[in-house]
């Protein structure tokens, strides 16, 4: 009951906020379930990395580029390793094993699950998108969302041409994570730059259009088993809330509207499996499903 009143007052304070209907129907917690889960996972992973340097509790060493858990489990970012291989360095077994494990994991849970559930920059760009929406900022110019694919190829070419892991000189993702764990001040300028870019220049600009690391993980999305399904799509009341909160809104329509007889599963590789559409839908249209689950109503 108290949750309902709280939700009601919130809805009144910002009547246009997407998800206010869902909050009214499901309560605030119910309408932010996956968002909260995602933030918990993001901060839990960060806490695991920080437990070592801050508390001397060495569960995970290293950073998102490569890490070692409990002294045995290596995990390596496939994109940085691809750059290294393009630069004609054949890595040692630990890095190759680590990348294989990561590839396998994200091939199951959805490539860009890294982006929405792990990446530290996600918090920054989600924040920028939220603020942009709240302030009603419409300025700027959004680059083509294909930019990231070209950048993915371009970075690998540049790595081959220079013999260096080129993107790591500018990569905001690894820089942010490194700054969090190993300290360093200048990396925060990069974070501010990404925030400003997403706030003032391009809505969902960095993660949704530019980041080649996300593009690399998205390639796994083509086979990923875990997907979001618009299973109850007949219940859709066209409130558009899912389109507003979705970081990759172009992925929703075919599944939701059965365009050209499309099934209910969102198969676009760009979908990050963030689950915000599940949260904000007051009609419970969406749910997590597997790729071959074609049940719909």
């Amino acid at each position: 009951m108290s949750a309902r009143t709280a939700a009601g007052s919130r809805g009144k304070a910002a009547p246009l906020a997407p998800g206010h209907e869902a909050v009214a129907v499901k309560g605030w917690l119910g309408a932010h379930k996956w968002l909260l889960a995602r933030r918990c996972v993001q901060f839990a992973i960060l806490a695991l990395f920080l437990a070592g340097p801050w508390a001397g509790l060495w569960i995970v060493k290293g950073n998102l580029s490569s890490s070692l858990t409990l002294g045995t489990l290596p995990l390596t970012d496939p994109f940085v390793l691809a750059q290294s291989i393009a630069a004609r360095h054949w890595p040692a077994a630990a890095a190759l094993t680590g990348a294989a494990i990561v590839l396998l994991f994200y091939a199951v849970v959805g490539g860009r699950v890294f982006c929405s559930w792990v990446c530290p920059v996600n918090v920054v760009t989600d924040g920028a998108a939220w603020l942009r929406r709240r302030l009603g900022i419409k300025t700027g110019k959004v680059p083509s969302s294909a930019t990231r694919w070209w950048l993915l190829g371009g970075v690998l070419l540049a790595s081959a041409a220079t013999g260096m892991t080129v993107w790591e000189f500018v990569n905001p993702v690894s820089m942010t994570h490194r700054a969090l764990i190993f300290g360093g001040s200048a990396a925060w300028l990069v974070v501010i730059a990404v925030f400003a870019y997403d706030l003032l220049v391009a809505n969902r600009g960095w993660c949704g259009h530019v980041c080649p690391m996300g593009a690399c993980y998205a390639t796994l999305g083509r086979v990923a088993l875990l997907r979001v399904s618009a299973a109850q799509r007949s219940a859709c009341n066209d409130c558009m809330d899912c389109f507003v909160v979705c970081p990759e809104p172009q992925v929703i329509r075919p599944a939701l509207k059965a365009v050209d007889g499309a099934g209910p599963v969102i198969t676009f590789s760009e979908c990050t499996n963030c689950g915000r559409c599940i949260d904000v839908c007051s009609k419970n249209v969406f749910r997590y499903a597997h790729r071959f689950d074609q049940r719909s109503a």
Partner: protein
Amino acid sequence: MSPTPSQPGRRRFLNGAAGAAGGALLLSLGAGLTARQAAALPADALRPPGALAENDFLGACIRCGLCVRDCPYDTLRLADPADQVAAGTPYFQARKVACEMCEDIPCVKACPTAALDHTLKDIAQARMGLAVLVDQETCLNFLGLRCDVCYRVCPVIDRAITLTRRHNERSDRHAMLIPTVHSEACTGCGKCEKSCVLEEAAIKVFPIALAKGMLGRHYRKGWEEEAKAGGSLIGDQTQLPARRPDDAPLPRGVLK
């Protein structure tokens, strides 16, 4: 839905693709150029033991910091983007903290990509840099004192640094013991630079590419070739008869 002709759609697609490709390739080019610029290693930054040659290292290191974590003496650190060293790569500055030359070389073992060469098993074979006595004007031993600190702290004492005796021209009655670095034994650990008692170290460890000269590839040292061949390669010098007027004086040192 509306019956639009395919042509404008295709044109829009091509325009979009060209824009995306152009923007992305420009960004890659920018990143590539940034990388090239940022790749220069400053003279006081040393790589961990076993690091590949700088250019190869920048292709192999994925900047995970596992070497930093396994360094028991907190010698290594990852470069901040504001540092002059390529952001996120491990390095140390000898004057601040020198490498302790652990026998089991934990930093090398920790490296997942072999940017630190795993074939390095003997830390004495590490070549992190090369010590150079850069300032003979302030080095106390060059002033005729017996400081010797760099020599005493050297973990490869009497091989990487030796003391060479030289006559002290100033006093004309003393000897100077000159610290002399030998590149075939110096690991570049930085202990000498760290311990130099001067305000600014007179002996410094530089990356090898900066510190080391190179003879022309075709150069041969006559005395080495002679030792190898067991005798002079050009044979004994031919004694030619001196032709001169009978009354001309002999050059100095020539016996009749």
